[in-house]
């Protein structure tokens, strides 16, 4: 299925990451956005509020982020491609209903333009410290997908990809931007609509008599309907069976939770999305994402000039984590350098994935400013020893 030309702003533009994400959402067929103003993400909803009335779609400014996320789950079941946009404090408030989206298998997108935290932290300055919250923030056991673009151009594509993956897997997909990427302005080329492939909603062809809303085939993702189709389904946040009816037993819990986990884990290889450069013969591989990946480049160049074989690996999909990829490299290199704007989040995954085959050095940063390339360079030197 191709994008609708009426919703695609084809051409070369000068946009910041927030605006580019908004255009990505429109191109992806988003028709519902609920949001609450929060720096540094507000530009996304501002653009949606301006653009929707000209292309068809509803923006509602909710009373808080609890309401925004709940409305998004409702809108998904109403038949919309739905999105909300926020930053740290709002992301915290959305956690409960991100869990609801996982449990109700509501396809939806959450953009988090990360800022410094904890709490109110640094509203106008960058952070990358919500990465573990993205994976583990809602209670209970579940799997979801998180992307991390590093340029306005990629914000456009990442948002489209987020919508497509949310439809394919029926999970909330998180676009984990950061303030730098959200607010930097660069050239963004938006192609013709026929160059944008969209994953359509997996509506069932079964009759109401045959259809069970949570029965799945081999890929463990159930087919969907929308409210008003005449199926009279029940959907609940409680543990449920294939009919969607609550069942309070450990057997039902095991069956459901296992499927919610496996529908992502069994397809992890399909979900590896990394940018790699010179990792083949590298002694050191720098692992980073978002703005930290761009700050790593001068450090990598400097080290290479000195003859150190440095590879570059950027996580575009951060969750599920590409552990196989990391393990393969771990067996060949002297060490990983992980650059992220926090005091150790994705580095824990890198360490886990290496299974002790190599060393891992973190270059941390508390947020509010980007890393000094010099600090990254020093870590590369250390790792190359």
């Amino acid at each position: 299925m191709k994008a609708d030309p009426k919703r695609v702003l084809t051409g070369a533009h000068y946009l910041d990451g927030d605006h580019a994400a908004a255009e990505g959402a429109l191109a992806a067929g988003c028709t519902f956005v609920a949001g609450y103003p929060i720096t540094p993400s507000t530009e996304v909803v501002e653009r949606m509020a301006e653009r929707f009335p000209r292309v068809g779609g509803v923006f509602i400014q909710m009373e808080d982020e609890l309401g925004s996320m709940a409305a998004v789950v409702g809108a998904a079941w109403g038949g919309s491609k739905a999105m909300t946009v926020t930053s740290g404090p709002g992301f915290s408030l959305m956690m409960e209903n991100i869990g609801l989206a996982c449990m109700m298998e509501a396809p939806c997108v959450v953009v988090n333009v990360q800022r410094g935290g904890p709490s109110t932290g640094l509203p106008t300055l960058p952070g990358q410290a919500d990465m573990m919250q993205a994976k583990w923030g809602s209670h209970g056991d579940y799997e979801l997908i998180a992307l991390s673009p590093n340029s306005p151009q990629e914000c456009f594509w990442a948002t489209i990809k987020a919508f497509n993956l949310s439809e394919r897997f029926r999970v909330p997909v998180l676009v984990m931007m950061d303030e730098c990427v959200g607010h930097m302005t660069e050239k963004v080329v938006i192609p013709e609509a026929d160059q944008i492939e969209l994953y359509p909603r997996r509506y069932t062809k079964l009759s109401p008599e045959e259809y069970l809303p949570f029965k799945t085939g081999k890929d463990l993702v159930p087919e969907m309907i929308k409210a008003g189709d005449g199926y009279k389904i029940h959907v609940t946040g409680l543990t449920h069976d294939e009919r969607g009816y609550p069942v309070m037993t450990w057997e039902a819990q095991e069956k459901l939770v296992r499927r919610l986990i496996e529908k992502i884990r069994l397809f992890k290889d399909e979900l590896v999305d990394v940018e790699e450069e010179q990792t083949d013969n590298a002694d050191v591989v720098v692992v980073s994402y978002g703005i930290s990946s761009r700050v790593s480049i001068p450090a990598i160049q400097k080290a290479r000039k000195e003859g150190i074989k440095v590879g570059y690996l950027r996580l575009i999909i951060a969750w599920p984590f590409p552990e196989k990829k990391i393990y393969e490299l771990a067996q060949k290199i002297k060490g990983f350098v992980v650059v992220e704007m926090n005091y150790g989040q994705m580095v824990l995954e890198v360490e886990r994935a290496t299974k002790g085959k190599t060393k891992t050095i973190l270059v941390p940063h508390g947020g509010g400013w980007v890393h000094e390339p010099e600090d990254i360079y020093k870590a590369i030197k250390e790792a190359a020893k």
Partner: protein
Amino acid sequence: MSEVQLKKKKEELEEEHPMEHLLRMERMPHIWCPTCGIGTAVTAFLMALEKSQIPLKDTAIVSGIGCTGRVAGYVKLDSFHSTHGRAIPFATGLKLANPKLKVVVFSGDGDIIGIGGNHFLHAARRNMDLTVVCVNNFIYAMTGGQCAATTPITANTSTSPYGNFEQPFNLPYLAASCGAVYVARWTALDVRRLAKSLTEALQKKGFSFVEIICPCSTLYARRNRLGTGLDLMKFYHDNSVIKHGADLSELDIGFQSKIVVGKFIDRERPTFIEGVNQGLRGVLKEKFVEYGGPIDDD
């Protein structure tokens, strides 16, 4: 009982319940306690649903969490059992995604007014096109009888063991002051009046609100030594006063005080969708593209 009598009794028992076609009978028996009023509230709602002649296919029901939060699970409509307090925003998303739907929120006082109070205020302010039915049993019942934002002063609950000393909300006053276009209150005893009121609420455009005062014998009545659910029904009979259009500020409910019931507000103002669409069309003229529902609607 003779064989013949037994057979007759069995046939009687197997007779179809008049509301069966609107209920998920495969989920019976329900979880509610004997003499709980929620079942009566559901019956009145189903009577209203039939009377209002709204196409069932286009009707959705959303509940939050709690005893009344289980209503969505038993009604044979597209039904959603959302998170605690978030039934109204969930329903808002559902309605805006597919404006042809009639969306009903059916939940309890703790859910809609306690934890979800903020959403209630804003949905009423926006005149979001929702019918909100709030079963008020004065207590958090599902969790074992804790104090609520509706517990009358001096009433005993498990978290106010010496009595509640906080002022409870007056729900009709709250709803009306926030902009609801239809506001009524009935007790679970007033099934016919309640059903009539719910019919009007369902047929009303915009934010309609019906409060149902409901007995909780297991927790509220037992802790306060008020007898059983039946005794509470008797209490409603003797102590509820019908006063349509009553002064909203006088609708507070005290501990075992008189309960004023009736229809208090029935007025018109543009709904959220009407207001936004009219406003945008006025400004953007022919450039305005109205969203009418899911794009791939078949």
